[in-house]
């Protein structure tokens, strides 16, 4: 039974592998025996992720800025077939609805929704996702539980959640499973860098809303392992909320 949770012999694409949940996912997948294809914009950061992974020579690295159509095309061309894809790449920007700018709305929708959907679609078209494969989209509880200033981000993740269910139905013929994970706040540079305009004090206050405290990237990566593994072979179209009890209130 426990062997069902291993990922030996599986090849998995991880986007956003240069930091946060993506990095931790790559590390955890390697521990479970998967061979990982890491993508992200920053080659140095990807190399740093790779340096933290087991069985280094079984993994490959593709630095690509997905906003650049030629980089997108060359990524698709160069990666091999995979048994799983984990979409971790995403951006957050705090904007009260009165201050949403068209360009930022477009960018958030593009990176958080369109790119993951188009990447999945293109992999399928090129027959690069194997039968019995598993595709995982990292969503967010902000798709369900609103907070001030997160309209664009929350809407992009809601759109992604909808896409998951359509993919799941259409790909069931190939026994490819498609699921989403919706984490609450996890401690990553995403929130630490302060590009959200949120102070450490406010973050500490917010953490009190979580009965189990904020999560860690590993907490999410462990769920990714489960969704990639054969242990979840009857689960598709689901959306797992992992939030330390935040949504209980």
């Amino acid at each position, binding site marked *: 039974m426990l062997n069902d949770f291993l990922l030996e012999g599986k090849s998995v694409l991880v986007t956003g592998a240069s930091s946060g949940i993506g990095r931790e996912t790559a590390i955890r997948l390697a521990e479970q025996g998967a061979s990982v294809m890491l993508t992200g914009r920053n080659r140095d950061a990807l190399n740093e992720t790779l340096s933290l992974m087991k069985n280094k020579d079984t993994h490959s690295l593709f630095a690509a800025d997905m906003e650049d159509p030629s980089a997108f095309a060359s990524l698709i061309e160069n990666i091999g077939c995979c048994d799983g894809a984990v979409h971790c790449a995403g951006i957050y920007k*705090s*904007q*009260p609805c*009165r*201050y949403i*700018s068209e360009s930022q709305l477009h960018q958030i929708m593009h990176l958080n929704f369109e790119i993951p959907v188009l990447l999945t679609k293109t992999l399928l078209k090129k027959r690069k996702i194997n039968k019995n494969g598993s595709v995982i989209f990292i969503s967010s509880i902000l798709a369900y539980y609103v907070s*001030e*200033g997160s309209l664009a981000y929350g809407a992009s993740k809601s759109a992604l959640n909808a896409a998951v269910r359509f993919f799941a139905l259409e790909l069931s013929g190939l026994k490819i499973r498609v699921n989403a994970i919706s984490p609450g706040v996890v401690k990553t540079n995403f929130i630490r860098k*302060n*590009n959200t*305009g*949120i*102070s*450490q*004090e*406010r973050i500490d206050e917010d953490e009190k809303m979580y009965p189990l405290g904020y999560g860690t990237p590993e907490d999410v990566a462990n769920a990714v392992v489960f969704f990639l593994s054969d242990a979840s072979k009857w689960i598709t179209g689901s959306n797992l909320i992992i939030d330390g009890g935040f949504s209980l209130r």
Partner: protein
Amino acid sequence: MEENKFLRNFIEVFDEVPTEAITMNTVLRAIEGWSSLVGLSIIAMADQEYGVEIDDVDLRGIKTVGELFDLIQKKTNVK
């Protein structure tokens, strides 16, 4: 940075136009309609109108409209 334009941008962050006259001496948190969302909106306004980043620690240290003006101006000059 022009004061009148700044005051117009500042007034725009409120859901409703404040009934009192807003001057450089007005105390932020004494303005009717002040809320945490207004605070977030000030941060977004500073970013969009002036291209400067302020966070809520900056904001907490500020008492008057004039002090906000000075902070944004200082950050604009640093760039």
